[in-house]
């Protein structure tokens, strides 16, 4: 299958794949924005317990977390034009990128909603009461007390969300978007050096997710510096102190237990 292994190809493929890095990052950024907006819209009815809307949010969450992203991509790509046709919206000529960003955005929205809700709920209720007691208005209490703390709590989850999204974008090629994975497949077919292309591809993904993780870790440190965190000790069988144990939990609580 294919030509014999030649490490030289890995290096020559790297710059070619990096050419399409922009498309991948565009999908990530676009869906992240869509996802955060969608996440807020979905999380608010659940946090404020608004009837009906809250049930709708629940169905939204259950659907987007209950079906694979690959199926969602096809569903939106083929289904949305048909659903919107009777309303008078013609999407048949819309660019594929629109469907890709929309689907990834809505998918991310479900996880973002849970992240938002969990981080706001994790802020101690007494903090808000103390803010009120000190004479703050509800808006002040939210922006000065709740938000900064919730942000710090959300960052580790957010970090996982972004990295999961980055990895998920490798599926966009199924709709014909020429992002990194699509490019890798083309290169592989052209040169018959499949294994080398995929190694180069994996390497690029690894570097990007590593960089993102480190950047967000720095952001987390900055945002949680008020919690005077003890130095990281990782002794076995020990319930770690809030700060770091939370990170361990967040690591998997991103909801995505698997790769895709």
């Amino acid at each position, binding site marked *: 299958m294919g030509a014999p292994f030649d490490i030289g190809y890995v290096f020559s493929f790297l710059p070619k794949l990096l050419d399409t890095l922009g498309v991948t990052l565009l999908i990530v950024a676009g869906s992240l924005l869509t996802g955060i907006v969608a996440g807020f819209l979905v999380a608010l009815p659940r946090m404020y317990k608004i009837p009906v809307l809250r049930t709708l949010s629940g169905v939204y969450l259950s659907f987007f977390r209950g079906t694979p992203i690959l199926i969602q991509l096809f569903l939106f790509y083929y289904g949305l034009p048909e659903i919107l046709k009777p309303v008078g919206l013609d999407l048949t000529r819309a660019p594929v990128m629109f469907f890709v960003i929309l689907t990834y955005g809505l998918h991310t929205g479900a996880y973002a909603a849970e992240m938002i809700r969990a981080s706001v709920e994790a802020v101690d209720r007494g903090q808000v009461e103390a803010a009120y007691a000190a004479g703050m208005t509800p808006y002040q209490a939210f922006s000065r007390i709740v938000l900064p703390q919730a942000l710090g709590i959300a960052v580790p989850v957010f970090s996982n969300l972004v990295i999961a999204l980055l990895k998920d974008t490798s599926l966009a090629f199924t709709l014909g978007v020429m992002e990194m994975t699509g490019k890798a497949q083309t290169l592989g077919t052209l040169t018959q050096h499949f294994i080398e292309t995929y190694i180069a591809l994996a390497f690029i993904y690894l570097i990007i997710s590593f960089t993102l993780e480190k950047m967000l870790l720095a952001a987390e440190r900055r945002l949680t510096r008020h919690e005077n965190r003890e130095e990281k000790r990782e002794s076995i069988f020990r319930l770690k102190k809030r700060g770091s144990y939370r990170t361990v939990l967040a690591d998997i609580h991103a909801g995505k*237990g698997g790769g895709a």
Partner: protein
Amino acid sequence: MQLDPSFIWTAFWQLLGAIPTTLSITAVSVLAGFVIGAVTAMLRMYRAPVLAQIASAYVTFIRGTPMLTHLLIIYFGLPMIIDGLAEHFGWSFRSVSIPMIGFAYISFSITAGAYMSEVVRAGILAVDRGQVEAAQSVGMTTFQSLRRIVFPQALAAALPNLANSVIGMLHGSTLAFAVSVVDINAKAQIVASTNWKFFEAYLAAALIFWGLTVLIERVAALIEKRVGAYNRGGVA
């Protein structure tokens, strides 16, 4: 192209035949992944020299790259390695005799292993150190205290994450189409393109996956109740 609601039902029946493939990929990857994950987590937590570093590198690599690349690397790389070894040692076994689904099993197990190691690690870290000390003070050996005290509690703590992993692998199994395994997703593709009814076919596939996911969540909640029974507060 007009929406044909009755075709959703037709597609649904045709897709049911592919459920066993999807479930077998999920089951194999979760079970094998759990074993790999438990070993990896132990190596890292007990800081086994060299092995712990290898385990960390493995987890970092897998968690930093898409599952699809793991599958493709295994699919194209494994035959090369096997055939190379076979030629060198004169085995009669050739990579051609590995069924396509075998690649999915192997690659997804490796993927699941990295995620599972984090699940196992978080579960064990959630057990209070005092529990182990208490076990040792009543005379249990390390192995006894692990088996009787740590694991049952770690399992209860890890269950929600475990359920998430199972769901993640269920959804990940849709990638098997890349190595021409006909799971629910690939079947939907076939049904869709032969009948030219894409939306209906994928809607049916989405419903099946949604149902399976909800089922896994429910079962996990039931088990959680049972396993966490020791943890209830109050009397009786």
